[in-house]
């Protein structure tokens, strides 16, 4: 009887695997963080990764951001027109984009493009034993491969989000001008009317964390890929899923903390 109840309280296998994964990623994050601050800095590789992971994701982010702003404005407009509050539309869209939708959507896109890319790249390097070869040749793969990628995503994702937010506002302005005429200066004035530093700063800090998580999860999944070609695909897929989930969880925590700060 006692043995049965004791067994009920033990976590089952999937739960145990989740906690195991979280613990392993946390330990991996600590290792990578140490490598980031370790000299010599891998600046060329960092710039190359920033270009590959950040700049190359720019078209996707720009298109997504523009469509995001347009769609949000078009969807919200009828509701606000019903309330006779169409003039509140720019402020509402801006707050939605800057606070929440911009960072999360762009982070998810980055998770899809960047995390999967890193997972697949490092996974294939693991499968083809390139990482092992680097270790043998005396190059620190954690520093050269992982730290540079994590650092570049940490820097690039916030910049991508900033650009995407800006493009979203342009998209929103375009959508506003479909039904009614509004000047850009008035639109920007209305957009920034309700916006405060408490909206911008926490959202920007959040994107830094998102970038770090995308780099870490992608690198972890690829770095710890198992032998076999199918594990590359699995690493890429797993990186996207885990990074996306992590983004939502971090977003939830960030919103709670921001809310707490605004109350104080």
């Amino acid at each position, binding site marked *: 009887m006692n043995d049965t109840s004791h067994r009920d309280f033990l976590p089952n296998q999937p739960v145990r695997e989740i906690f195991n994964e979280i613990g392993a990623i946390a330990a991996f994050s600590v290792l990578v963080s140490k490598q980031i601050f370790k000299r010599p800095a891998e600046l060329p590789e960092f*710039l*190359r990764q*920033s*270009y590959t992971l*950040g*700049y190359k994701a*720019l078209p996707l982010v720009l298109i997504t951001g523009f469509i995001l702003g347009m769609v949000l404005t078009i969807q919200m407009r009828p509701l606000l027109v019903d309330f006779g*509050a169409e003039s509140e539309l720019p402020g509402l869209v801006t707050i939605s984009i800057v606070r929440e939708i911009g960072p999360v959507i762009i982070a998810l896109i980055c998770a899809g493009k960047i995390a999967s890319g890193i997972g697949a790249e490092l996974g294939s390097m693991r499968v083809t034993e390139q990482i092992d070869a680097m270790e043998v040749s005396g190059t620190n793969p954690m520093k050269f491969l992982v730290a540079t990628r994590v650092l570049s995503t940490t*820097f690039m994702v916030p*910049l*991508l989000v*900033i*650009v995407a937010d*800006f493009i979203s506002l342009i998209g929103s302005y375009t959508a506003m001008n479909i039904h009614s005429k509004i000047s850009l200066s008035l639109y*920007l004035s209305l957009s*920034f*009317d*309700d*916006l*405060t*530093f408490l909206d*911008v700063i926490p959202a*920007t800090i959040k994107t830094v964390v998102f970038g770090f998580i995308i780099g870490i999860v992608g690198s972890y999944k690829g770095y710890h890929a198992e032998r076999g070609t199918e594990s590359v695909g699995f690493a890429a897929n797993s990186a996207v899923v885990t990074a996306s989930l992590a983004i939502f969880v971090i977003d939830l925590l960030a919103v709670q903390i921001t809310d707490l700060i605004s109350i104080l």
Partner: protein
Amino acid sequence: MQNKTLNTVKLGIFVVSAILIFVLAIYYLGSKQHLFRTNFVIYTDFTTVKGLKTGNNVRFLGIDVGTVSAITIINDSLIRVRMTIDEDVKQFIKKDSKVEIDSEGLMGSKIITIFPGTMSARIVHDNDTLHSIETVNVEDILSELERTTGYTTRVASNLDEITRKINQGEGDLGRLINDNSLKNELDRSTREIHLLVQELRQVAGKFNTTENDMGRLLNSRDITERFAGIADNLDSAAIDAHRTTKELNKAAEEINYGNGTIHRLIYDTIFIQGIDTTLKNVNTGIGEVIETADAIRESWIINLFSKKEKNK
């Protein structure tokens, strides 16, 4: 190598652009909140701030000129609001300007409105405190509206009750409108009034003739003429009485101030004493005469003649 440099340039352009957008956004946001301009601070006190928050706009003459920079509770009935105002509008805000909390639209956020002061008042200084006006907010209006609606409902209910009673013939008004018997009573009353009027008319006709006392009193001139004669007699009697009174007054004046006997009799003590003395002398004289008469009566000569008389 050239391709690598080109990529780095592209990356650089992207990074600089993103950072520039961020910095411009922060600057625009800051300028909206008057962070990058010369500001001054003024305070105001409220009993309640009605949901006002730090960062809400301060409006003067319809223009956003500052923001609420702090809200501090002083005690349980006093809240101090710190406002950061653009230095450029300082010259237009006077010391007697009033401050009020308003709403931006029915559902909008709160704002502080500064009303202009008088022309003669001095310009506000840094850290001055302006007087506040407690305004009626939407909640108060809705509460008042709710109370008014309650009253209206009660009035409507009462009116409904009254009309129901009238329709059902309850009460005097209801009976008046609905009861036919009351109409008959009214008809009867009207007929009686009509008869009464006719009788009154007959009485009035009698008054117009001289066949009875009242008619004569009202219509005959004889009585009036008699009354006029009586009045004339009364007038002449009054004139006589007046004349008599004047003569009496004259006599009284003669008595009081004249030299007559009555005046001396009343007011002249020497004369009175003389009379007293005279009377005393008269009395004495009379006493002596009586004594003389008694002596004569007692004298023998008289008695002699008296006895002869008796003997006869």
